[in-house]
Structure formats: C-alpha cells, structure tokens
C-alpha cells in the first residue's frame, strides 16, 4: 500500500468539499489571512496523522520479531516447527513477497528434512522469479516515484541461484540422483543468465558456484562417471580461485584429494601430474583403494545471513538544496565461524572417526559483494526518485501558493517533504532463512554401520543423528543446521 501514502493527500483534496471562493481570494489589507487548508485544525491533524500512518504501513516483509521467533526455533533444532510457523504466518508476507515466503518455507523445510515440501516451495520460488522477469509498467512507474516495495520481490541473484543448490541437495537426500544433477546444472546456468542481463561494468563477481561443482563431482564419482567427476572437481578448484580473490575463501583439502583420486581413476595422468605439481602437499589416494571405502559428506549450514539496512547520503538536487538518499546495504550478523565436529563410531567397534566441517561457501560475503555489484544501479534509481519527488512537491507547492498563499504552501511543502522522506525507503527485503556460511566436511570410512554424533556451534550437548549404513564406493550426505 505504500503508494497510498502519496496518493491520499491528493485524493483527499479531490474528495473534500471545494473551498469557497471567498477563501481563495487574497485577504483584504489588514485582515488576517485564513488558515492554510481551511477547516478545523483537528481535521487537519487527523488528515496528517492518517497520512503518516499509511506511510508507516508500507509493506516491508515480515517484521523482525517474526524472524526472531523462527530463528529461535531453528537454533533449538526444531526446524519442522519453524516451517510450520512460516506457513501459519503467510499473511505476514504481502502478495509482493510470495517469492520470499516460498523461499523461507523451502529453506526451513530443507533444514527440517522435509525434502519433498522443500522442493515444492523452492520450485514455486524459482517459477515466481522467472515470471517476475516480465515487469509491470504501472508498478515500475509507481516504484520510481514511491519506493521499491511496490515491486514484487524477485530475489537477489545469489538467492535465486542458491535455490537450485538447495533443490539439488533435496533430491540427493531423496535418492533422486538424476534430478539432483539437473538442479546442479541449473546453478551456473542461472548465474550466467542473470549476469548476462547486467551491463558489462556492473556484472556480479559471483558467476559460478564452487560448492555445487564439488557436489556434482561427488555424485559423478559415486556413479562411477570419473571423467565427469574430474571435470567438476577441477571446475570447483578453478572457481575457488575467484572465491579466494573476492571472498577470501580457500579450497578445502578434501576437494583437492578428491580431484587427484578421480583423475587417477579416470586415467587422466596429464591432469594428475598437473595438480600434483600445483599442490605437492596433497597426498594421492589411489582410486583402486578409495572405491572400497565409503565417503561421508556433511553439509553444515551455519549462522544467520546478513540483513539489509538503509544507509543515507546527501545529494544536491538544486542549488542550496541537499536531500538525503537512502539505499540498502547488508549488515553482518554475529557469526562464530566455528566448525561442526562429527563423530562416527562403527557399531562393530574400533576407534571413532572425528572430523570437522570447513568453509566452502561464504554466503554472507557473496551477499555483500552481490549488493555492492549493483550499487551503481541502485544509487542511480534512488537519486532519480528523490529528485523527481522534490520537483513534484515543489511544483504542486507553487500551485498551493497561488491558491492559498505562502503559509499554506509552506505547510504543504513541509508535510509532503516529510512524507516523501518517509516513503522513500530503501528496499530492505532479503531472505533471512539463508545461512551465513555453508561448511562441508568429508571422511572416508570402511563400509559398515555407524553411530553419528555432531557437536554444533551454539549447542552445549552433541546431537545424536542415529545410525547410518555405509556402502563401498557410495557417498552418504548428512545435512546440519546451526544458529549460534
């Protein structure tokens, strides 16, 4: 409803009885000028109050209290309840935030192990993102004057790409390997498509995803398609060069180990030698040995994604006229950066195997960089909006001055400027269910049945994850969510 804030003053003028001609005429010398906007001052105040109220009702996604409650449930490990809470609070999301609603549902369902439900919602979010390519002329025009909350939330580029990553993991957990690969292929395809739509000097640096390539490598390796596995592990290593440069994330050791083993299994001596020269400290586990072992892959979603806050800066729209322009920026949330510690105990006996998760996808850094990459686009629009509002108010104030005199014009300008400032909010919508980082841990074990325990950051006691059965040459994916 945000545009109503703008509309109402003008609509009210049309609806209220016309001002008597006597009032419009200049007051005779010596007589006091009639009050600006004739009518009782109480009525004027009520009118102004309603404007402010309406301006404050600008839809800006679910309130922070709602997210705090969802996060409390997630921190307690009650992800299914968090999913239900999002579902029960559907009305907290406006119709322009349907993508956000399905994204929140899809992610909470994913963390809660409701993989089918997660896929249904992430699919809807993906479709909405595609449908929103077609822009509404009216909404775009209105958003130019009012604010971006008038536009349906289409998702940040990285949010839309990550939809496929989560879907891919859902399919893996459902045992649908081909479907998992379909989604995995979509991650880079989506990133390339979104990036192609931006001007050359404003491209995202998040062009490819290293984590999804690593997961594809794992899937191909477990399917025995070692040539494909080598390609994806190598691609992941390549994308990590970008990750290191832009986000400071370095490749984990197990990626390089898997790359060497897959190259060995595929008979790619050339690649094996090349990577051994590049990483002389990485020890090769021959494929003949590895295929008799099972691999446990722990995907650990840790922390809270950054939230958007508004920052203002002054812009001179006219000589001696400086206005404040607000744009969104990401604010980091407290983050421990601690690993999850996994313990696997073979039920047949022996020493437990303990390993930790390592940072593979710094979602927080990707989000911040992604927003910075479109800073120029956002800033230009925000400046244009404030300038347009200023000149519109100035022109209408001039009309008020002609009709009602200086005092009325000043009142009008003051009120409308305040209102304009109030409604020119930066778009602070973002997906709050995403983690700050995605960590991964890998361990090779002899086939058998294992008891699994995970010590997660922010939880005092280790979490028992039950028993898993490991088969030679197969990969077992374990998904964990922690909020400190």
């Amino acid at each position, binding site marked *: 409803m945000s545009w109503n804030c703008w509309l109402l003053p*003008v609509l009210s003028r*049309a609806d209220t009885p016309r001002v008597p001609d006597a009032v419009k005429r200049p007051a005779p010398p010596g007589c006091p000028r009639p009050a600006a906007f004739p009518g009782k001052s109480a009525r004027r105040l009520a009118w102004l109050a309603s404007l402010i109220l309406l301006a404050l009702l600008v839809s800006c996604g679910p309130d922070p209290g709602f997210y705090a409650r969802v996060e409390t449930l997630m921190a307690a490990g009650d992800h299914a309840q968090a999913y239900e809470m999002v579902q029960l609070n559907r009305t907290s999301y406006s119709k322009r935030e349907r993508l956000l609603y399905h994204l929140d549902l899809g992610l909470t369902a994913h963390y809660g192990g409701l993989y089918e439900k997660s896929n249904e919602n992430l699919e809807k979010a993906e479709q909405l993102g595609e449908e929103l390519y077609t822009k*509404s*002329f*009216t909404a775009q025009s209105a958003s130019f004057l009012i604010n971006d909350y008038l536009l349906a939330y289409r998702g940040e580029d990285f949010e839309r790409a990550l939809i496929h990553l989560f879907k891919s993991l859902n399919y893996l957990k459902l045992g649908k390997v081909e479907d998992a690969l*379909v989604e995995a292929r979509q991650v880079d395809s989506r990133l390339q498509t979104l990036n192609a*739509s931006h001007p050359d000097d404003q491209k995202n640096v998040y062009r490819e995803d290293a984590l999804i390539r690593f997961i594809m490598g794992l899937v191909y390796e477990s399917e025995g398609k070692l040539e494909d596995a080598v390609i994806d592990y190598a691609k992941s290593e390549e994308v990590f060069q970008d990750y290191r440069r832009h986000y400071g994330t370095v490749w984990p050791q197990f990626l390089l180990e898997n790359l060497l083993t897959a190259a060995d299994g595929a008979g790619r001596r050339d690649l094996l030698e090349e990577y051994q020269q590049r990483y002389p400290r990485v020890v090769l586990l021959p494929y003949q040995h590895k295929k008799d072992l099972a691999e446990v892959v722990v995907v650990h979603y840790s922390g809270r994604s950054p939230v958007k806050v508004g920052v203002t800066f002054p812009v001179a729209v006219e000589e001696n006229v400086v206005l404040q322009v607000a744009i969104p920026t990401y604010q980091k949330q407290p983050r421990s950066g601690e690993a999850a510690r996994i313990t696997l105990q073979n039920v047949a006996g022996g020493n437990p195997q303990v390993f930790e998760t390592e940072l593979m996808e710094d979602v927080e850094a990707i989000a911040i960089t992604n927003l910075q990459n479109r800073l120029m686009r956002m800033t230009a629009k925000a400046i244009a909006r404030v300038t347009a509002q200023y000149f519109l108010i100035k022109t209408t104030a001039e009309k008020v001055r002609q009709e009602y005199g200086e005092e009325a014009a000043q009142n009008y300008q003051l009120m409308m400027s305040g209102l304009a400032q109030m409604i020119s909010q930066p778009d602070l919508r973002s997906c709050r269910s995403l983690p700050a980082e995605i960590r991964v841990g890998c361990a090779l074990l002899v086939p058998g049945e294992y008891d699994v325990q995970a010590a997660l950051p922010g939880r005092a006691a280790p979490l028992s994850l039950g028993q898993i059965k490991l088969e030679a040459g197969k990969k077992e994916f374990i998904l964990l969510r922690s909020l400190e």
Partner: protein
Amino acid sequence: MTRYPFCISLLFCVAAALTGPGCRTGPDVQRTDPAMVVDYSGRWNDTDAQLVARAMTEDCLVRPWIEDFKASHGGQKPVVVVGQIRNNSHEHINTEVFTTSFERELLNSSRVRVVAESQLRADIREERRNIQANSDPETIKKFGKEIGADFILLGVVSTIKDEVEGRYAIYYQSNFELIHIETNEKVWIGEHKIKKDIKRKAWKL
C-alpha cells in the same frame, strides 16, 4: 491547484487498480485434447514426450533388425526389455512417459515381444513368492519361467541451452539404442531432436 493533484491521484488510482489484488476466486479448469499442443513455460512437457516416442517407434519398427533377428532365429520374434533412459538435461524429464509409449507401439506392432523392466520384475517376483505361500496349489505360478530378453533399450536425453534473461534457446537430443544383451551388438540407434526458442515478455501493463 486541484487539477495537478487530481492528475497525480488519477495516475496512482490507475496504478492501484492494475496492481491491486485480482477478483479470481478459484481455478479455471478446461478439459483439452491430449494431442493439443500446449506450451506455457517452454519447459519439457507432454508434447515433447509424445514427439520423441512417436519418432523413435516409427524409426525403430522400419529398421531391418527385427527381420534380421527372425531370419537368424527360425522366425522367432525378438524379445525386448526397456532399460534406463538417462536424463542428462537441464530439466526434470519423466522418461517413463515415452518409454511406456515406446513399449506399447512395439507390442501393438505384433513384431516384437516385450518383457517387464527390472523394477516391475522385482515386484512380480515378490507377488509370485506370495502366491507360493498363500494360493491354491493348482493356481501357483512357477519360478524360473521368465523369458530372457534378447535386446535392451537404453537411452539418454541431453540438452544444450543458450540463455539470456527473458529469452532462451534449448536443444534437446534424445538418443535411444537397442543392444543385444548377449553380444553387446548395437542393432539400432534412434535419434530425435527438438529445438525451442522461448521468449518472455519484458513488460506488461
């Protein structure tokens, strides 16, 4: 003074009417002819599956592998089983839709015998096991009477996608192969290509 604000109000009223909630209360459902081509998203759909199934069966049945087999096996019809059709594409494709059509056309041609695929065979064996324990002895079906297939149908669907936001071209290539189970000899390779150019509207009112 009133004209200016009025114009602005009118502009925003129009915007409100156009962007406001719709009045639809329920889905609008219409039965359509299954053969009718309906494309909404541009993704793989029933029409594509039907096109592939039809093209593949037509090609498979006119090739000489059936007659060659009969000639070398005393006039016996070849027995075919449908194996895995891999999806190497960018989309979720239910390959069962066209493998079932493929089986049906082979059967209806009366020139080939078709046996159940592996998952169905497992289900049937379970049922046979159940029969052994619970059925009238005269109606019990024996183990070891299954017909072994001569050929297995394997295939793959791949895509090449070229995309910019709002427009994409996608090329689907379906390759089916009939392979002699004993000798690994490929007796037929079918190929079907579909290319689509999908464009989204950039603007609406």
